[in-house]
């Protein structure tokens, strides 16, 4: 398997989750992109997902989409697919993906850093 790290602009998270639902392994893959807790130098926000996938994933993700047996919003998935950009830094107008085992290196390539912690949130005290 190979590791792919994705950077999805905040505005495209719903569509990207529908794409994940279509090309993923189960309907639960529509939870792939959560809160946008990474940002680029310009302060644009992104949800990041990183995981192991089969080598065939890239071909699947760039081929014409087939609605899964569990259903999906295919219009949303196709909008997200049209924004996919393999091997490019993160930007607000596309969903960037980079292949590589080291997540830190992937984030550096994407040009992303975590949004600073909110000291009032969670258990950060």
């Amino acid at each position, binding site marked *: *398997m190979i590791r*792919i*790290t*994705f950077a999805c602009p905040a505005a495209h998270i719903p569509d990207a989750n529908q794409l*994940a639902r279509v090309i*993923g*392994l*189960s309907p*639960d*893959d529509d*939870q*792939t992109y*959560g*809160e946008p*807790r990474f940002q680029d130098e310009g302060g644009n926000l992104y949800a*990041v*997902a*990183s*995981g*192991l*996938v089969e080598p065939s994933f890239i071909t699947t993700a760039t081929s014409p989409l087939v609605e899964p047996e569990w259903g999906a919003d295919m219009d949303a998935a196709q909008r997200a697919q049209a924004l996919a950009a393999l091997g490019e830094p993160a930007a607000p107008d596309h969903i960037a993906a980079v292949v590589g085992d080291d*997540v830190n290196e992937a*984030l550096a390539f994407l040009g992303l850093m*975590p949004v*600073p*912690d909110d*000291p009032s*949130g*969670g*258990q*950060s*005290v």
Partner: protein
Amino acid sequence: MSGYQVWPFHPSILFSSGEQGVWYDPSDLSSMFQDAAGTIPAAYGQPVGLILDKSGNGNHASQATSTARPTLMQDVDGRIYLSFDGVDDALTSGIVDLSSTDEMLVIAGVHKLNSVGVISPVIVNVASGSIPGAFALYAPNSSGNRQYAWSVGGGSQNFRAVDGGLAAPHTAVQSLLSKISSADPDARITPRLNGITQTAFSTNLKGSATSAFRVDTIRIGVQGTYYFKGRIYSLIVRGKLPAGGELAGAEHHVAQKTGVTL
């Protein structure tokens, strides 16, 4: 050991009287599966979507989203662990009812990779530390002087962190003992690292007590939008404080799995 037998020790002893809790053992490949449904056996270098609870309580932990599963790995010494990527990897149990106890023992074998400026939750049962009955271990917490941290919620948060010589990458057996109803803050939150009770803290908040722990999930590697980056070799949670040689036995067991000498 004052007549208590430390070896041989088996973690199942901790749950032999029906104590509530979890025991996750990544070194036991038969207890893990690549998918959340438990149909594809675990294999090195592959994601883990389900880890079975070996405590006998049936509190299995899973991850339904395929890219958010930790990876089963083996280190150079042959020790087996779950690798969490710090981006989205996490496992969550079903509901664990700890509402009938005011006692808690947590032991984790961890190798942390995040060092500073990042909240890195090893194990959490609820998203806010001030909620009554919350408990959590961090490696590290939000700032550089909180290399390891412990939290217990009593309505206001009991929180302790330690500093110094523990920057990532760092491997440790991190333990928490708590009697959450106690009026003594040292009993509400007793942090241990590599078998030693910690007494010098970079942060020390003496919160409040509450009557019992919670009915909630056990979340491994995640708290809200924060994720743990590193390895987990072993994890034990029990809703009862250790007696006799249990603590030494359990910590030595986790240390052996983790490659730490106590």
